[in-house]
């Protein structure tokens, strides 16, 4: 029953830039890899380690956090905090023995529909290449 591996990717998108960018990708009929499931949050700063770590431990093959470009945050500074928290998390996930690029932070603006598609497709390709998150089958998580 060797089925082609299709990853499960969780994408946290900020409402103002990245979600709008994703919408633009849709309304421009850009093809985007379906393995990413979008979860809308108001600001990338809402996404903290609790959300990302639990996604990973519960078997997400990849987690994408996308927010406004630095300086563009609808709430002025949220994405800077998001970035710091993310930098910390990158360190932490290392000890889970996961490839550090299973989690990704990207800046996607509302006009960057194409970029959204590129980032998601590339990320999905990367994750597919990496194969399933070993934790998906880890009974301890």
């Amino acid at each position: 029953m060797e089925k082609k591996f299709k990853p499960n990717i969780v994408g946290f998108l900020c409402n103002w830039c990245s979600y709008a960018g994703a919408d633009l990708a849709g309304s421009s009929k850009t093809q985007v890899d379906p393995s990413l499931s979008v979860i809308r949050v108001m600001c990338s700063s809402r996404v903290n380690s609790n959300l990302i770590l639990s996604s990973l431990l519960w078997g997400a093959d990849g987690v994408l956090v996308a927010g406004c470009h630095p300086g563009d945050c609808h709430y002025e500074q949220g994405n800077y905090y998001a970035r710091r928290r993310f930098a910390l998390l990158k360190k932490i996930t290392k000890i889970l023995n996961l490839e550090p690029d299973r989690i990704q932070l990207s800046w996607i603006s509302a006009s960057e529909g194409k970029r959204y598609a590129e980032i998601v497709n590339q990320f999905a390709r990367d994750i597919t290449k990496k194969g399933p998150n070993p934790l998906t089958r880890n009974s301890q998580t």
Partner: protein
Amino acid sequence: MNKNIGVYVCECGPNIPERIDVDKVVQEMSSMDEVKTVKKFNLMCSNDGKKFLKEEIEKQKLSHVVVAACSPKDHEKTFMSVCQESGLNPYLFQLVNIREQCAWMIPDKEEATSKAVKYIRAGIHRVLYHNPLKKKEIEINTDVLVIGGGLSGIEAALSLAGPKRKVHIIEKTDSLGGMAADLSQVLPHQGSKMDLIKKKVEQLESSEFVNINTFSQVKEVRGFLGNFEAVINTHSGNGGVEEKEIKIGAVIVATGFNLFDLKKNPIYGYGEADNVLNATEFEDMINSEKILLKSGKKPKSVALVHCAGRKEQGYCSKVCCLYNLKFAHYLRDHHPDIEVKELVIDWCLPHKQDQSYFEEAKDKGVDFIRMDELLKTKSTGDQIQIEFKTNDKSHSVSVDMAVVAPAMVPSEDTTKLADILNIPLDKSGFFKELHEMLDPVSTPMEGIYLTGCALGPKNIHESLTQSHATSGKIFSTLVPGRKIEPEVKVSEIKEDLCTGCQTCLSVCFYGAITTDSFKGVSVVNEAICRGCGNCVGSCPSGAIRSKHFTYPQLYQEVLDALR
């Protein structure tokens, strides 16, 4: 409470069925617990669709509604208001985006269908965790406090004061008028005198809706839009300080600017060489109509030196070029015997009529000299020698008198006031606007506005425009008789769980979180919170909840994403 969820799949004409097997979606969803009904509809956002949804909610006695259609950016509000009309709390509704995020993105029908199922299922699970949120209304005070009695402050006060809105204006000096009152002419190319300011001051003083406090400063401001309280200290004549508290709905900061201290850099020769004046001193000379050297003689030549302090401060003050031109015009018009040399780095004349003003000066015989960098100003006996560099070569001119145009710098109380008002400063030390482009007079603290040179160097017409802009903002947010409705999806702190570590406080840009020092817990001011959730992300103990984006709600989405 019984959970009766209604799930409606919008076909969006051919858009969704083209790529998604809607019937399959409907079938999958109907097997879910707590889903009372699943139906598809051709176009939910049409009037028929809205009517249909309304009937369904009423007929089926739905407790929650999930609509799978387009992006929330398009029709979230539409369906929320349908819910509202049907007597269902609009926050017990979830819009699932299967058009942009599935149908239009995924060419493979099977994949798109299963993705849509995933999303809708997540939506159903999520909506079960929704709470009925209620809009709140807060009574407001429409009065306004204007800090600073300069031109900007006066204009704002005049524009705002009226029978339904009182304006308190406070000025730290003895009289209103500010910097502009000392100017010889404000309108260089039209040459009219500046008694207009006087008129405006008189108008203010005679208004029954304006309360003028001179010799006064703010000591404390607390509260939020529509409900501020300010403590004002007024220095009475005998050295005592009188304290009073006023209630206002908005604050306008119009504290103006200071001039760069030319003594900070010896290259300007100010304070060392006689007959090196700064712009204000020269204005005084014009006002007294006597252009004389220290010796009492009339100068034969005057140099107007631009851009003093620009390099030190790191910005162009915008107005200096024009007022130097004004000086040049004045000298040529009234003292044609004085030779005028103007030492310019870059002309900054960004107004449709300023260039012609420059051309006119040129025609009047002003000697414009381009310099790349000023090197030195020194006194050589009777004369002042100014050395500068152009095209990598050194040059110098000698004149009898030099007028140096200093940069505009933040006024001295800026930092203190920023602390009192809890608003940020920018890197140049001026107040920082909420958004440099789109919100140039607001601050992160809703209800506190900025105008004029408190924000950075500005010319008079810009300052006036901004004063009107602040009044526009206040007119539209603080309408007499109306209440304000703060954002509903705000953060909320569970007191029991809060440890009082104030992490949330330090990450909140809007100052919406304060500490209850007695209880040792953080408190969200819902009137200020914008609902970004940064505090939630920062709280280690999960004591903060961002309404409508709670952990359980997001976790439901995560779980279904991983199915």
